[in-house]
């Protein structure tokens, strides 16, 4: 029975081992973040005189801003643009304290934040998507809200099918969910029964496979595998968004404390240039009209 005793010891160790794995990943992540932070701060102190720019804020804008910064740095060797995440509120805070020269926000500024300069660099639309075979074409925003509240649970009143609706949402903390919460739900809670996925891609994947599903994703990521619904009779087209007829749109804002100058100004002008606005378009965002960046003073 000696050998069995040893095995039993193994059994005791095993779950601890797997726990160690998952949390050492977490620790590694944390270390990486700390290291990254440690690298960022000296880098902006060592390069005075407008050769380095810190852009921080919305995690929804961050991946796009990363690309823009890359192109910018390619064109201007010697200039440094550090793009950091943290979220819209953190970006606003960073601009206030001067930790970043440009803040990024993917939500409209609140009244007490309006002292900052804001420049719209792009728009991001949310599409409400269903399975391509779903006969439904249009919903009102109130209907969308009721579905995601869990008040409407079957398709019966919407398209006649006596089937239960599969509601698919993003996880807490994601920018897309934040935008949906703000634009559609207001203060109400999304139903607990909703299926939760951690990327736009998996939400689209599930909706494209489940005939009874409904979900929301970034407008730029809609493809032929799903159907984007019209809202209040307005289809999510670029035109409707620019005319502000389609309601589920959020701005991508760049914020500065003073009127942008130096490298910050150059970077913002660069993003508003035709070349980058074309890139914005290709990446699935909606470009702002050239020549008239919606600028507002304090």
């Amino acid at each position, binding site marked *: 029975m000696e050998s069995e005793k040893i095995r039993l010891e193994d059994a005791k160790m095993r779950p601890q081992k797997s726990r160690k794995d998952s949390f050492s990943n977490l620790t590694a992540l944390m270390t990486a973040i700390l290291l990254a932070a440690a690298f960022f701060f000296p880098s902006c102190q060592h390069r005075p005189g407008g050769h380095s720019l810190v852009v921080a804020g919305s995690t929804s804008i961050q991946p796009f801003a990363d690309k823009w910064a890359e192109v910018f740095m390619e064109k201007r060797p010697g200039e440094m643009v550090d793009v950091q995440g943290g979220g819209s509120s953190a970006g606003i805070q960073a601009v206030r304290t001067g930790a970043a020269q440009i803040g990024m926000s993917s939500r409209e500024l609140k009244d007490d934040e309006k002292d900052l300069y804001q420049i719209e660099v792009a728009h991001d639309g949310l599409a409400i998507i269903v399975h391509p075979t779903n006969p439904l074409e249009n919903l009102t925003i109130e209907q969308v809200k009721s579905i995601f509240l869990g008040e409407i649970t079957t398709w019966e009143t919407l398209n006649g099918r006596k089937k239960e609706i599969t509601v698919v949402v993003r996880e*807490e903390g994601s920018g897309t969910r934040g935008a949906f919460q703000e634009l559609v739900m207001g203060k109400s809670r999304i139903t607990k029964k909703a299926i939760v996925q951690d990327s736009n891609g998996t939400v689209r994947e599930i909706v494209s496979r489940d005939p009874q599903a409904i979900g929301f994703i970034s407008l730029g990521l809609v493809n032929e595998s799903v159907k984007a619904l019209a809202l209040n009779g307005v289809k999510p087209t670029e035109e409707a968004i620019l005319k502000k007829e389609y309601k589920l749109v959020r701005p991508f804002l760049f914020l500065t404390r003073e009127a942008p100058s130096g490298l910050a100004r150059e970077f913002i002008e660069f993003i508003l240039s035709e070349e980058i606005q074309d890139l914005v378009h290709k990446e699935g965002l909606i470009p702002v009209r050239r020549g008239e960046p919606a600028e507002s003073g304090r």
Partner: protein
Amino acid sequence: MTKLERNDRLVRLSLLMIALSAISVLAIITVFIFEQGTPIMFRYGFRSFLLGQDWYPSEKSFGLLPMIVGSLMVTFGALLIGVPLGLASAIFLTEFSHRRLARILKPVIELLAGIPSVVYGFIGLMFLVPFIRDKFGGPGLSVLAASVILGIMILPTVISIAIDSIRAVPDSYREGSIALGATRWQTVRMVVLPAARSGIIAGIILGMGRAIGETMAVIMVAGNAADIPGSILAPVRTLTSNIALEMAYASGEHREALFATGVILFIIIMILNTIANLTSARQRKK
């Protein structure tokens, strides 16, 4: 002290140091999780974490009960599927099959353990989930899907350890039983299995550990709704999924709440292990 004795002491000391360093990593991680996860639990109260049913971290609502129930349901479901299948395979391979067949099949089964969990999840998503959705209804992403996938994932562990412990039962036991007129099945049921019991239970504990800790495959097929599932066809979120799902953007109290999830998971695994070990210890005494 002779030179040999001194050498011996040196080796013992260095081995002790190495052993301690391995254990200290575990200790550091434990301290880290508790240090990060417990303050928020004190701030909002243990009750609201353990018994709260609403998980809306952005509104400071941190109820973990749906995830605790979810983890237990999925793990129990995995054992329900994995243990009978695994045990039956092990009994067949050791007692009823040709030796040569067992020699081929056992490595194949062990190979199953080497398949990355994301592959299990992907297969589940592509085949099992649509199957459940079409045949049984609901979204397909469900307790059932997660249980089946986890049940399959723990098979290699359960089977190979059960095989080892059944083989460890001395042949004289079997011979004695058969000499008394018992059939082969009676021998297995009444002599071999009781003798191999503690090893088999050890295998089940290992499988349970894998099931409760598995994250990737579960996230892919479980649907992750933070709600206590009303049926086995409803989506479910486990404690591990909760951490992995929301880690990316969590900050401030949300992040602390994810660490608190880790603390609860830690405690649950401790409790389950202790229960399992106590049961097998008692079995052995019999």
